[in-house]
């Protein structure tokens, strides 16, 4: 079943077009990474999906119109916005009480279990917690909700590396079960590379790349080319070329692995490198991987 379906989704603020007619199909049970530069329209697209902003075009989330049916939709959807939005005056027990009071799918015992693994005290106010603890608290609350779609907008922004690692670990181990869907945006792409099942690049309000991770791994190959074979490698039309320690690293799209192996060391590129290649080409002269 489709979790998110959009046709010609568009959102403009005055003359600035934030989301420029995107089409989107997200199946249930996927972990989609939405990657894009600042101001690419990621948050706007997510806000439309969450019913926080009106939009043009067609959009269905779990079969509902998010703008007109936000209240009902939020029984099945959870989100953590880009920066800490937990009210600073709230105490941990108040958050638990309140969610148990208003959310039909909130499992209080589960949340207490997650919190027991942290050092967060029940009587603490959110303002007394460190940034990492606030993220832990919010994740504990959200993971205790039996939702079908979880939206994370820069969930690990400003956290240190330990918390970031822990965040995705608990998400995968304690939450994701292949029937839920997760949409995540982040700038720390290297951290989500092994987490995602689907990848989407968005730039200037448009989708510039949309593929599954299997497709990503079979399509894109990176070769550290032997110096004497650079010319031969360039003849195969790489979509991007960069220099590291005096050696050329070329990124290819849909080029036979055997053929590339003859030119040097072949490996799967990082999402970050592909991102630079695709978006660099977008703004540059050539049009490569974008489709």
């Amino acid at each position, binding site marked *: 079943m489709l979790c998110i379906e959009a046709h010609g989704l568009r959102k403009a603020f005055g003359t600035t077009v934030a989301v420029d007619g995107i089409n989107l199909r997200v199946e249930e049970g996927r972990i989609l990474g939405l990657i894009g530069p600042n101001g690419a329209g990621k948050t706007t697209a997510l806000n439309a999906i969450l019913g926080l902003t009106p939009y043009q075009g067609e959009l269905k989330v779990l079969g509902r119109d998010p703008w007109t049916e936000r209240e009902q939709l*939020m029984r099945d959807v959870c989100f953590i916005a880009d920066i800490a939005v937990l009210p600073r005056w709230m105490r941990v027990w108040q958050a638990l009480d*309140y969610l148990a009071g208003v959310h*039909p799918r909130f499992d209080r015992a589960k949340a207490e279990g997650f919190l027991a693994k942290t050092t967060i005290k029940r009587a603490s106010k959110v303002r007394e917690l460190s940034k990492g603890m606030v993220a832990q608290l919010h994740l504990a609350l959200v993971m205790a909700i039996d939702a079908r779609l979880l939206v994370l907008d820069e969930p690990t922004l400003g956290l240190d590396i330990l918390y970031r690692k822990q965040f995705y670990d608990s998400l995968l181990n304690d939450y994701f079960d292949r029937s839920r869907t997760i949409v995540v945006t982040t700038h720390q792409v290297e951290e989500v590379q092994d987490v995602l099942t689907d990848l989407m690049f968005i730039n200037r309000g448009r989708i510039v790349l949309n593929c599954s991770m299997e497709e990503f791994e079979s399509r894109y190959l990176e070769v550290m080319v032997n110096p004497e074979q650079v010319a031969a490698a360039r003849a195969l039309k790489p979509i991007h070329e960069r220099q590291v320690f005096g050696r050329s690293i070329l990124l290819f799209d849909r080029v036979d692995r055997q053929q590339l192996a003859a030119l040097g060391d072949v490996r799967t590129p990082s999402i970050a490198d592909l991102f630079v290649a695709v978006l660099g080409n977008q703004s540059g002269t050539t049009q490569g991987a974008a489709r």
Partner: protein
Amino acid sequence: MNTSSNVMPESPQKSQVIVPAVIPATRRMYWSVRRELWEYRSIYIAPLAAAAVFLLAFLTGLTLSPAHRHEPLDIPYEFAAALIMGTAFIVGIFYSLDALYGERRDRSTLFWKSLPVSDLTTVLSKFTIPLIILPLLSFAIAVVTQFVMLLSSSAVLLGSGLSVGMLWARMSFFHMSLMLLYHILTVHGLWYAPIYGWLLLVSAWAPRAPFIWAFLPPFVIWGVEKIAFNTSHFLAMLQYRLTGPQPSNTAPGGTLMDMLSALTPVQFFSTPGLWIGLATAAIFLAAAARVRRYREPI
């Protein structure tokens, strides 16, 4: 955990029959109101502080100036009630102005909106605070304060060998409390409802400085009307809203509470101004709920 929500009556007008919700609307409402009391603790701290200050002053006066002992009139009792109610009214104004503005300023609105609570439920729960919670709270505090005053006056009278019978005879404590409750629910709740509605609407809408947005437009309307037509209908309307309906059979010059309490329930509920005010409040609240849906964090 929440026994009180279970005893709350089911609201018949909610469309719970159609929507298969596990959590009834009354329970969402109950927790939303509790949430407000957690966040805005001044709702009960301010009237309590006013009562404490008044009691301190009253007891000091009682022990220091024996001259007052023989005239424990109704005046300080009314004054105590007025002070506590006035405090609650001011708290209600500032609360209403901040209720939907503060959540946008600290971006917590994104958290609240991630939960299955509608904008209307949120707005109504915030409206409940000045409409019902603050009046009932200030009533309870005022009655306890007056009772403490009565007991301490009696103790002083007894201590000086005088009879307390006269004091208790003159003070019809139960009747006074009943009048106070009537006044506080009708005037501070129902009659002032459009004021709270307006403040909540401004709070939901204002890009910044909700206080100015709330109080400047009335001034502008008054000024424009005065200059353009040389009339003061708008000002008269505001005055009428603030002072409340006047009974036709009482002479002017009494205290505000005298006049208002002199209104019988039949008179009060047949005043067109009450119903016009409630309709206006409903419009303001519906608009506030709609504005909240569109507004993003500041």
